């Protein structure tokens, strides 16, 4: 059964800003499928991981790394690169696959996830992987780091952008609200915070644990320009980043997502926060992904 999993993850590289929208969307959809195919197998290998959040953040992560941001896998530490800070560091698996798809490191390295001595630690480490920006994992760390990064760019008159990806449960950490005050106070229009609003945290719904609503109002009250999008709609993701910043104000994107998207038995199911899928479940995930990726009408042409 496991022999079915012996497929290669391709190096897709990045797709430029000048590419037609339809090509960009097709590229990112393929990348999303490849990420979700590799992720459960990496987690099976490691015996550990956060598949639900990997799947909910995947499309935004891929859009930023493989298209939107000014980053270069061949020069991962270029001084004026845009900074992508994955504050929800427990979804390192998604980050690593996105980076491998983009060409930051060879895809075969992915199957060392959490191995002894591997550079692919269970949470990202900037000293192990060039292009990882912050050693996150404890929640509530990425937003302040992003504020500092954006401030440095502002001080230097640099046009580089900083994007921080946060979990919605993570917004329960007070340090995020300290950072939001600061981002607004300093007028960091070069900073975008994206909240992966999958509505679930480790053990229960966010709303049942410590509710965030009204999150958009809170963002506006803290001085952010707030957008709400469907986190799995590529056109919506591309549009929100193409819109650019509001003058003198940081941007908050509330990205409505589904933990485990788009797999029928994972989506919106809190049990999949850090469930390690069984071989049978992996087969089912791969089968659903194949089905979803199949060109329309394939069934008819059989």
């Amino acid at each position: 059964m496991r022999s079915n999993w012996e497929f290669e993850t391709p190096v897709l590289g990045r797709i430029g800003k000048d590419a037609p929208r339809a090509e960009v969307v097709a590229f990112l959809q393929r990348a999303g499928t490849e990420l979700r195919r590799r992720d459960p197998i990496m987690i099976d290998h490691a015996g550990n991981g956060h598949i639900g959040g990997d799947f909910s953040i995947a499309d935004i992560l891929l859009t930023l790394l493989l298209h939107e941001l000014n980053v270069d896998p061949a020069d991962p530490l270029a001084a004026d690169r845009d900074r992508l800070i994955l504050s929800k560091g427990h979804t390192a698996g998604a980050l690593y696959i996105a980076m491998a798809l983009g060409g930051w490191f060879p895809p075969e390295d992915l199957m060392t996830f959490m191995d002894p001595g591997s550079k692919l630690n269970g949470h990202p480490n900037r000293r192990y992987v060039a292009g990882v920006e912050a050693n996150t994992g404890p929640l509530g760390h990425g937003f302040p780091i992003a504020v500092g990064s954006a401030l440095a760019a502002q001080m230097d008159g640099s046009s580089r952008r900083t994007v921080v990806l946060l979990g919605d449960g993570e917004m329960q950490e007070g340090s995020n609200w300290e950072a939001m005050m600061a981002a607004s106070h300093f007028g960091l229009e070069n900073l975008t915070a994206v909240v992966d609003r999958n509505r679930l945290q480790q053990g229960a719904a966010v709303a049942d644990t410590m509710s965030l609503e009204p999150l958009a109002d809170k963002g506006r009250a803290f001085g952010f320009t707030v957008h709400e999008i469907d986190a799995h709609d590529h056109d919506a993701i591309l549009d929100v980043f193409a819109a650019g910043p509001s003058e003198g104000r940081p941007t908050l994107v509330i990205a409505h997502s589904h933990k485990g998207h788009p797999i029928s038995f994972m989506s919106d199911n809190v049990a999949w926060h850090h469930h390690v899928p069984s071989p049978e479940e992996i087969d089912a995930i791969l089968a659903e992904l194949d089905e979803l990726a199949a060109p329309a009408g394939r069934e008819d042409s059989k």
Partner: protein
Amino acid sequence: MTELFDCRDTYAATLLDLAQTDRDVVVVVNDSVGSSKLGGFRKELPDQMVNVGIAEQNMVGVAAGLANGGKVPFVSAAGCFLSARAMEQVKADLAYSGHHVVLAAQSPGVAYGGLGATHHSIEDVSWMRTLPGMTVLVPADPAETEQALRWAVGHDGPVYVRISRAKVPAVHPDDYAFAPGKATVLREGDDVALLANGTVLHRALAAADLLAERGIAARVVSMGSVKPIDVDVVVAAARETRGLVTVEEGLAAGGLGGAVAEVLTEHAPARLVRLGLPDTFAPTGSDAWILDHFGLDPEGIAASAATLVE
């Protein structure tokens, strides 16, 4: 009358000079401009100061992000809040991340005396010393403070340095040269060795005078670099004297006393008395009174040292 100095003045002047020389040097504060004596810096270089307000977690995270963006941040805040409130940020965002950020802990130890133990920072050296990659410096006077800061600005890694408001005399000679991991023998003597740093180094020197009156020759060693520690100087003191006394403004457990005990146990077992705060929070009183209370007055230090030669 011996002239006394507030090392915060040295800190502010040195930082201003460093920041004027290199425009990437910035200071990050938590409303701690006055308590860090950085009013002049704010006036001269407002664009190189980031005041995050009273928010220590954000303060240290912002410093990490500034370092990611090519800046050399000095975080300047009261030691009690900088160390304790932001400890996970110090661990993950600075030490684990390997960022070059200088944590300039203002008025640590019991410098805030009567304000009480919430405002004392007696644990900071112990905590910081356990973080992999962290350098821990406790300078004793203006010369050592300036040199430690000038070294730290060029060191690629996190540094914790104590800067106190407590008035201290100059104790280092004119040709003093600070280096991390290097202790300096300020006074020779082969009966006992007093190893001290920070605001109490001058108390150890005064204790050596008292001991000399009793015919006991005390070696006095300046231990401004707690991590890395000068193993050779500690081992030499163990082998060439009848015992060691560590003297510090803070918990002896895990602090300089702890560091010296580790060196002795591994390399040269010897008798050791660790002076500092014992396993207790300090009672109310001025900083000088608290230090005297715990036996860190010259007479108390001398008495502890004398037990080693009896």
